[in-house]
């Protein structure tokens, strides 16, 4: 079936089985590789993107539900050369190790900050539940607090 949506500000149409997970449409049809495959069962969060501003695990989100929606991936998180505060904070704290899961974490964090501009440690514990096998959690927590600071200063 034909499905149309906006991704990172651009209109896109794909002709695909509606049950196909959005993840594979993004990665293999639209060739945006920043959104990662980890488990295919919405259990790790590596594929987290934004659908109409909500954090969604795209490996378990059928593409047919994306019809008419606004989708943002890690590639669309920054505005041109201006990195999103979450990305800036990630760079300041030198968070990534292998880096594979990091886009998912950054997307989850960016979505949380829209709802909770000044997250407490408890907010972070409750909302950021992705998996990082390099276990960069210590720096991530610092980066999330820093991102909130940067975002609040910018706006």
């Amino acid at each position, binding site marked *: 079936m034909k499905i149309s949506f906006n991704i990172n500000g651009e209109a896109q149409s794909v002709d695909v089985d509606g049950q196909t997970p959005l993840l594979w449409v993004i990665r293999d049809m639209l060739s945006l590789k920043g959104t990662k495959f980890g488990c295919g069962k919405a259990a790790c969060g590596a594929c987290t993107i934004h659908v109409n501003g909500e954090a969604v695990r795209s490996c378990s989100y059928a593409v047919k539900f994306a019809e008419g929606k606004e989708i943002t991936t890690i590639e669309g998180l920054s505005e041109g050369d201006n990195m999103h505060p979450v990305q800036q904070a990630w760079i300041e704290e030198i968070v990534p190790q292998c880096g594979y899961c990091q886009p998912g974490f950054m997307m989850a964090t960016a979505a949380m900050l829209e709802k909770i501009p000044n997250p407490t440690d408890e907010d972070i*514990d409750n909302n950021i539940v992705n998996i990082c096998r390099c276990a960069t959690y210590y720096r991530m927590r610092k980066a999330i607090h820093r991102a909130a600071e940067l975002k609040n200063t910018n706006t």
Partner: protein
Amino acid sequence: MTEKKTKKKGMRRRKFLKFSGVGIGLMIGGVHLTRHMWRRTIFEMAETTVPAYMGDTKQPMLWFQVSPENEIILHCSKVEMGQGTFTGLAQMAAEELEVDIDRIKVVHAATDTGNIDGMSTGGSMSIASLWKPMREMAATMREMLKAKAAEKLGIAISALTIANGVISGGGKSMTYGEVVEGVTDWEVPDVPPLKDRKDYKYIGKPVPRIDLRDKVIGAPIFGMDAEMEDMLYGSVVRSRLIGATMSNFDTSEAEKMPGVVKIINDSDFVGVVAKSYTEANNARKKIKFDYNVDKTWNLSDIEEAIQVGNGNKTVIQKEGKAVKDVDGEGEVMELEFKSPIGAHAQIEPNGALAYYKDGKVTIKMSTQVISITQKEVAKALGLKAEGVNLIPMYLGGGFGRKLHTPNAIQAAKMSKAVGKPVKCFFDRKQEFQNDTFRPPTHHIVRGKLSPEGKMVALEHNFASGDVAFNSALLPGAIKPVLGADVGAIRGGAIMYKGIENHRATYYHVDLPFATSFWRSLGLLANTFAIESFIDEMAIKAGKNPVDFRLDHLVDDGAFGTRIRNVIKACADKAGYTDKPSGNKAMGFAASIDAGSPCAQIAEVSIENGRIKVHKVVAALDCGIAVNPDQVRAQVEGCICMGISASMFEKMDLKDNKLFPIIYGPYKMALMKDSPKEIETVLVEGADFAGPVGEPPLGPIAAAIGNAVRRLTGKRLTELPLEL
């Protein structure tokens, strides 16, 4: 370089390899009578020595390419899997090449470049084994550039100076990029003297990771991100059951599934090639077959097998008498410990993209064993190694999981069958059920305490399964020579040389499923057993556990001294006390792995009946920290991964099915479980850069257990730690 020079260098290398071969041959031939001594020497070396890098470090041109824009491209034979190797090597190269680090770009060396590491990326050895060769190559390359510049500018070498990749003299100047233009012949001079440590501009500085930006913008750098034009997707059938074979494959339903291009019925595997990942996977699930099972396996069978006393016994360390033979007054204590089967659970699954064309294979993938993967694929397709060009990509986590790479062969065979590039990778269920697990362990630690509170004897008896054995990294013939699995025994020897009688005995058990390298190998479980026991002995002796440890470590000017210094630095930094304060207590533990001592103190409380780790203070002596920030990052990562492994993770086995097969049910530490405070002290107790990536995984489990003991009086003897 000149022909003559190449040959000479080449010959030198061949001689060396041959010599090594003779050495192993002699050992295998069996110096049978002295084999126990031999073995123990090898095992002790394995605990403390950094093996030499196994590749060409005599030809800088294999490693460094200079672009016309005066950028240095470092073609790296070690892979980047998060450990920060690319950044550290860039720092080392920049130091001797006399260029700003921004001018250095690091890429994975494709095998076609000829720059191939004969071993693997692992064992915390990348920076350590290249510490000297990388700086020597960079310094040599600098001299080569200088010599060419002198020729081109017509100025004596002695009159030239270098600043940030620009060579100047006599009022003229040339960039490195200009120097290399048109040069095809390089003379490789003798290695010039290297910089003094006091003159370092980059080594020892917290330079940001050079892959930071790519990893923050989501650049397509990983094996999973590899693409080739017109590529297809593959999926293979893998056994859900251990100890089983599969037969009577019926692919008739799969053939009818949408998107299917071809069903592959190979002697090694059955799989599907389809137009998309989901179509390949969906079709593969329709393939029917029979399992042939000889024996039913449950976890209890494995636990029964992994027992001290079972399997092949090897004494890996022996000083003085066994505990039971030590005369004199004193109290004998014995504790038993266990650790479970652990999964790698790295987020990027194993996979490969391969394209077979005109008798040559091109592969893009993440692998820790570039050379082995290349050779395996070549063999499987009846090609010479040179017939396979492996282009390594960044790894979305390694941890030992990417030391086995059957996907590369599968993808290559599929590509040959369909005449197009095929990307073939495992799904998450396959990643879990067919992992090469961390083997379970069993330990009996025994010790004798004198009436004065001094340990007079200590022995560590332990059982485990394959780690290095049956891996592509170790020749099969070495197993009977060594007896003990060199991976499983990591951290298994007693480091307290001040205890007059100490020994370690290992029992190797064959398991009915694949086990192999898991970050830090045996270290995590072995240190848990020994350091929990030492803590218990300290309590029995009525001593502070830090002092108690120092009492039994020899200030020998070597590793004994380095361990002592790390222990003292950690205790000082944390303000260690063995008395609980409020609802919290500190637990102490230390270890030495691959020659890098590490100590950790965990500050723990019990909340709602569960263990909570609030803060960890670590001290590590890896010698020179090439990038102190990334060394700290490795320590932090090891601590949090160690918390995950020691408090949450375990695999179960029922009716030949290993499970869980998905994150979530396979419990792991998340953000909420990770300590909010981590402090790392770097004790640079040696004048070389030593191993970093695994040694900090040693102490954490025991440190947490020891804190729980102080808090509750209860001694935890099993991983994962549960109250």
